């Protein structure tokens, strides 16, 4: 079974995000970029499936600017076998919207014919949480979102989902689109031997046009603003005082 893993290049989760002066979005010039953390979990899961003998090949795909190549190299250094870069923008500030990404991924899936697509549940830049769902609809495949456990058993997969109020376990028919949640696994670091090998692994470069997908934005960003500044905290001397303060604030 081949596993396809879409990975997105996003602002690093450690970077303090700054809104651009004109409010059109977040400033991404000269900012550290990394693989979307949820996608790292998806790559890790795919590699584990391969190590367990369930998967035979792990293919990472990224859609965006040319620099997303670095994100793919990271996936390769973690242990993916090959990568596909779909260049769809040349300005780092242009976000490719979920529907366009899903369409491109659907086209890639038709070519690659994976048995499983493992994606992050959302990207930490715009928190859309839509691509996996749209992709499953476009392909007509089953979907299981927010996975915290995945067990592949022949033609079906048992997936535990993190839903409001608890865990839900469902069985889905393969091929399937599974989007992964935080607690699925702890992604490994790129290993030094794999870092050295990453350059030699195949990385195909395509464009959105190759798949006939129009990536023109359909959404309009009206305004981007900083979140409210957090007020300074206070120190309390005892548990009793803590409870009293919480009651005062109406928090308990």
């Amino acid at each position: 079974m081949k596993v396809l893993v879409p990975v997105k290049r996003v602002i690093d989760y450690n970077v303090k995000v700054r809104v651009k002066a004109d409010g059109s979005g977040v400033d991404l010039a000269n900012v550290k970029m990394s693989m979307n953390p949820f996608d790292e979990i998806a790559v890790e899961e795919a590699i584990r499936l391969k190590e367990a003998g369930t998967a035979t090949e792990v293919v990472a795909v990224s859609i965006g600017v040319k620099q997303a190549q670095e994100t793919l190299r990271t996936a390769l250094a973690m242990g993916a076998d090959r990568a596909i870069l779909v260049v769809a923008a040349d300005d780092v500030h242009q976000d490719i919207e979920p529907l366009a990404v899903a369409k491109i991924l659907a086209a890639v899936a038709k070519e690659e014919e994976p048995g499983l697509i493992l994606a992050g549940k959302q990207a930490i830049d715009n928190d859309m949480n839509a691509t996996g769902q749209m992709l499953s609809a476009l392909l007509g495949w089953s979907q299981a979102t927010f996975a915290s456990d995945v067990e592949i058993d022949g033609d079906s997969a048992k997936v535990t989902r993190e839903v409001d109020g608890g865990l839900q376990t469902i069985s889905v028919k393969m091929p399937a689109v599974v989007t992964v949640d935080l607690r699925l696994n702890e992604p490994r670091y790129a290993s030094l031997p794999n870092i050295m090998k990453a350059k030699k692994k195949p990385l195909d470069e395509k464009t959105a046009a190759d798949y006939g997908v129009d990536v023109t934005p359909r959404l309009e960003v009206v305004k981007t603003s900083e979140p409210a500044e957090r007020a300074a905290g206070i120190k309390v001397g005892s548990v009793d005082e803590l409870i009293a303060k919480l009651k005062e604030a109406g928090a308990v």
Partner: protein
Amino acid sequence: MHFGLSDEQEMIVSTVRRFVETEIYPHEAEVERTGEVPDGLGDALKRKVIEMGFYACNFPEEVGGAGLSHLDFTLVERELGRGSMALTHFFGRPQNILMACEGAQRDRYLLPAVRGERMDALAMTEPDAGSDVRGMKCSAVRDGGDWVVNGTKHFISGADHADFFIVFVATGVDETPKGPKKRITCFLVDRGHPGFVVRDGYRSVSHRGYKNCILEFTDCRMPDAQVLGEVDGGFAVMNDWLYATRLTVAAFSVGRARRCFDMAVDYAAQRKQFGQEIAKFQGVSFQVADMITEIDAADLLTLSAAWRLDQGLPANREIASAKVHATEMLARVTDTSLQIFGGMGLMDDFPIERFWRDARVERIWDGTSEIQRHIISREIFRPLGA
């Protein structure tokens, strides 16, 4: 000329940086408070580093290392410099000098060290012989076919975790026109070897939790098989292998300075006094400008010295320049950063006071600033006969 990092180097840097931020930073405050590495943490870190294939990455592939170039390894050291030295010790970079192991020594010392099974420590310094290494008193005399060692070493880093020691000992004196000159031999000594004990050392203001110990030899008997390199060839093995540790001190200093700098910049951009961010006062902002200029200069000096080693070019003077400049830069950067933090900079609520304390030893160990300047100036004047 090309100053960019390759894709592999970028990935090495980001992987090590992330490891330090994720696996080291969260434990630093505890190490600092207790002066100890929490039980089991060292081994846990080591296991992770071995899994990542980074353990002993300074060793060639044929002995199980990763075969990194000096430049790549310097980048690793630079990123490790950000984190607590007590903890990054377990990232495992055994002394390169172990490459001088021969025959059975390879299986007993070199290979287990590279695999992370045995840790090493290196002992030259004595209470009466610091900068003047050749003045050492710890000595070995022949007795039958063996050597019998007596003497004391102090300031030996990492000795608390070491399974064996690389020890330099005087094995005789040559009369030369410039006066008597000691012959030095390097020995491999196992922890627990009869006649050899490791005692607690002093408490240092720098790098809490990264301990230094005292080694005592009392009629400690060792066969020739424990000699690393040639008998009386201690200075040769030293010169062949130890140059690189000075470069790692420079790389450490650059990495540490960048971490400290970033915190000072963040603080200056947020802290308000007199109705505005203190970064808006030129008295503060110009200090920041000076800091980054110095850090970049030290970084380039360090990387170019590493590059020279990779090219097989003479690098002795360049390494000494990198070491003296980077460590003195770190002293200024940590001091200025502390100043920018104002009174809070002194408090252990922030790591700035620790960076400032830690920085102090960098100008002393692996050759003091004065010794580096001696090396640099001799390289310049020796050819002129002056």
